[in-house]
């Protein structure tokens, strides 16, 4: 933290290379248009270079799951904001002037800027799905549905929808979520440089190895000829995942034969990636005593113009909409749909936020119908250790019931539940995945090499503490290396709240190997290696003490692998090696005249298992909750005629200091030997649905997230008319 409060820490916008130019992007202002030509009109400022579509004609389509993305729009622009050309200049001001010399000739095409429009009969087909399905580099699990339906996730458990014949009470509802913006304070920035046919890119990214792969795809290079270096990020929350501006920077650098750095203006950050707008229909069947019997879910996810992780989001959101409960019968159809909107991708909470908005409010809809207590209804049905989830996997280390009981008690649930709402969440962790780590002893200090990237989550502190714990030495003699695909051991990516857990395993194994090597040097048993400050000895024999600096360079390498995955037709298998779990209880007050809802109380409990760094964990959890408040009350991406309107911090409201109500967040630790459970995301999805349920208890149920005063006023009117 010291480097942050002294501002010695540099970010991607601070990286400089000799002779570098500054890049800017020309973007389509139309949501769907043929790009007939782009040309230079008038004189370019001195030293400026232009990148036109013909300059990247020889490059390949790329994408993390589906290779559907060109470096520059290839004949057709698919969203208002789609890059169609680029410039680079010796100064940012020269580049901005050069940008005004570019003119693109568009022919508007029929638009499909919403789910309805994209799914309608006769909707324009935005991508050639047949070609994409068969393309090399396309995920083998992709199941296109025709038209603009890129992927359908299916889950079938028990008899599926047919199982509703066993239910005595059935409720059904529809819910909808607007898109959202990650809005990290640091805008996207990337610097690309070519040298002897080898590409190096400095870019703050959560996914360095994925970016390496995608750039190699785009430029038809071997991965060994691409190097990705990730400086720390000023926040990301999913915005800086997979290839965003790196390929354009690389193409400009190749054309200019000079390094090129792009720092995105804020309005362009907003159209670079969004959270999936989504809508749900959920049907829930139960017996009169409240026992859940069946759940049916239909979900549509607006993935925007390019797929990015959309199919994965549709899958995760598909089973997240089941909820942490026992069901005899479950059927889910969750579709990832192309539209003429900015691409949607990874966003903190990863599909759980939207799915839980629908799923948990459906539980309270049933409670209403049964005249049941929402807490008792949940506790009756919540999964416990040994129960099977709808994917067929068995729950272990499951504490959702405990989380629910604790928050209910703290909010004073038994004293009266008017104005109060509950929510429970189980969120998965990327499965399968793989992490490697290396610990190097040199010059008396240990260095942890890990490709976990720094997004502000406390990466350095956590890695050092994991290593200190596994080695059995003082964290003060441990450093961490930066992230560089040329040197860092492999890691799937820094997403899904997986890093602390995965690196605990990989570092544990690396430490074990290093201790063995030290033991060999000391001619001792590995178990007898004892660190004392910056020295090491055989336990019980201080005479054997040697300074760590006296050893040559020694290293230990470790790997941690999670297996699993789901069958494509039925969604059966292992969705997640373990589960991120939590619950929230929220009490709301509504001003019936203005429609303004205020959070009067918010109690959150999250299960963390083994905590690596307590203060870092609390910070992550608090930040997640405040982002949840933003999703619940303030944050929505909005459009008119396919143009994004929310492109500044004035139109797009992130919670400010004065917006945050008091809340209590409890981090529940596990017993001896507990697993490390990430909690960077867990609390976020809890807040919107807890608010929705609190409003339902006031007779003001809400279908749309975020909750807006206008919608509450409509609900007040409807309630008072009843």
């Amino acid at each position, binding site marked *: 933290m010291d480097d942050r409060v002294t*501002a010695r820490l*540099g970010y991607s*916008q601070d990286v400089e290379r000799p002779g570098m130019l500054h890049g800017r992007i020309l973007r389509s202002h139309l949501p769907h248009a043929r790009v007939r030509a782009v040309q230079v009109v008038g004189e370019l400022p001195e030293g400026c270079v232009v990148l036109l579509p013909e300059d990247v004609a020889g490059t390949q389509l790329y994408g993390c799951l589906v290779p559907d993305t060109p470096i520059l729009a290839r004949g057709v622009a698919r969203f208002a904001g789609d890059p169609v050309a680029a410039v680079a200049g010796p100064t940012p001001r020269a580049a901005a002037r050069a940008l005004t010399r570019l003119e693109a000739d568009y022919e508007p095409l029929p638009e499909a800027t919403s789910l309805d429009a994209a799914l309608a009969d006769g909707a324009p087909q935005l991508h050639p799905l047949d070609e994409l399905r068969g393309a090399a580099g396309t995920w083998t699990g992709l199941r296109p549905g025709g038209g603009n339906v890129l992927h359908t996730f299916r889950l079938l458990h028990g008899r599926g929808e047919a199982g509703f014949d066993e239910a005595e009470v059935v409720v059904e509802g529809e819910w909808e979520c607007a898109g959202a913006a990650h809005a990290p*304070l640091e805008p996207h920035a990337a610097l690309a440089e070519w040298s002897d046919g080898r590409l190096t890119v400095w870019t703050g990214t959560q996914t360095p190895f994925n970016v390496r792969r995608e750039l190699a795809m785009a430029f038809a290079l071997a991965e060994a000829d691409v190097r990705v270096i990730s400086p720390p990020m*000023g926040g990301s929350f999913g915005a800086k995942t997979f290839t965003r501006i790196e390929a354009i920077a690389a193409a400009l650098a190749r054309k200019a034969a000079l390094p090129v750095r792009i720092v995105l203006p804020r309005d362009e950050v907003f159209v670079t990636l969004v959270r999936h707008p989504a809508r749900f229909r959920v049907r829930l069947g139960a017996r009169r005593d409240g026992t859940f019997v069946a759940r049916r879910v239909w979900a549509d996810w607006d993935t925007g113009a390019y797929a990015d992780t959309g199919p994965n989001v549709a899958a995760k959101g598909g089973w997240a909409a089941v909820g942490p409960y026992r069901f005899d019968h479950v059927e889910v159809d969750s579709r990832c749909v192309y539209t003429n909107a900015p691409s949607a991708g990874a966003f903190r909470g990863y599909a759980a936020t939207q799915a839980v908005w629908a799923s948990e409010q459906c539980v309270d809809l049933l409670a209403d119908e049964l005249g049941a207590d929402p807490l008792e209804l949940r506790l009756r049905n919540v999964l416990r250790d040994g129960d099977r989830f709808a994917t067929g996997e068995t729950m272990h280390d499951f504490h959702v019931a405990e989380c629910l009981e604790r928050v209910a008690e703290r909010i004073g649930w038994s004293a009266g539940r008017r104005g109060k709402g509950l929510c429970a969440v189980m969120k998965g962790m990327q499965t399968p995945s793989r992490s490697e780590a290396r610990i190097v002893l040199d010059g008396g200090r240990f260095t942890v090499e890990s490709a976990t990237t720094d997004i502000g989550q406390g990466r350095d502190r956590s890695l050092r503490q994991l290593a200190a714990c596994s080695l059995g030495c003082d964290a003060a003699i441990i450093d961490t290396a930066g992230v560089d695909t040329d040197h860092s051991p492999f890691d799937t990516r820094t997403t899904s709240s997986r890093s602390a857990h995965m690196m605990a395993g990989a570092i544990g194994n690396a430490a074990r190997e290093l201790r063995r090597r030290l033991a060999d040097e000391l001619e001792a048993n590995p178990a007898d290696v004892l660190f004392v400050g910056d020295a090491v000895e055989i336990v019980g024999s201080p005479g054997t003490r040697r300074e760590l600096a006296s050893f040559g360079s020694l290293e230990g390498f470790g790997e941690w692998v999670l297996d699993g995955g789901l069958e494509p037709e039925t969604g059966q298998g292992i969705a997640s090696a373990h589960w991120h779990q939590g619950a929230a209880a929220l009490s709301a007050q509504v001003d019936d005249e203005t429609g303004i809802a205020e959070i009067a109380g918010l109690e959150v409990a999250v299960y963390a298992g083994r905590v690596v760094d307590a203060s870092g964990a609390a910070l992550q959890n608090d*930040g997640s909750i*405040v982002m949840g408040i933003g999703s619940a009350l303030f944050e929505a991406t909005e459009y008119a005629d396919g143009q994004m309107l929310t492109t500044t*911090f004035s139109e797009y409201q992130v919670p*400010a200091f004065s917006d945050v109500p008091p809340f209590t967040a409890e981090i529940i630790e596990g017993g001896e030997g507990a697993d490390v459970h990430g909690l960077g995301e867990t609390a976020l999805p809890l807040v919107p649905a807890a608010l929705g349920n609190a409003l339902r208890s006031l007779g003001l149920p809400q279908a749309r997230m975020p909750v807006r005063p206008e919608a509450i006023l409509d609900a007040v009117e409807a309630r008072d008319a009843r």
Partner: protein
Amino acid sequence: MNLRLELNGEARSFEIAGDEPLIDVLRDAGLASVRLSCGIGLCGACTVLLDGRPVNSCLVLGVEAGNCEVVTIEGIQSGPGRLHPLQENFIKYGGAQCGFCTPGLIVMAKSLLDENPDPSEADIRFGIAGNICRCTGYTKIIEAIQATARQQREARG
């Protein structure tokens, strides 16, 4: 044109264009702590002190700072290697995660405490409402500022 000002206590001279914002002048002078974020004064990440007043340096023209004192986070320390109490408390209470908003926030908090040495929690919340933090959830930042205010009052006796 030529711009003269005092930057973190040092007299400096720059050749700048008439329409160049102060943030660009400062970043070109090597002060990467002044952050490029929204460019239109809505997030506070580029906050600096101009003759003691907090300003969004993206909204101030370089020429407006002529013959003024400009202070960034690099200039608020009590001496080489000695952190400002706000910085010490940010570390102690955990007031930073990604750190991107931190320089602007600490400069703003210093200005707040200079003007109001005994702020209530509401004073603090509203006083720094123009600085967005997307990471921390704000609680620890407020604790760090409150602790600093307390310590500074005690030091004054």
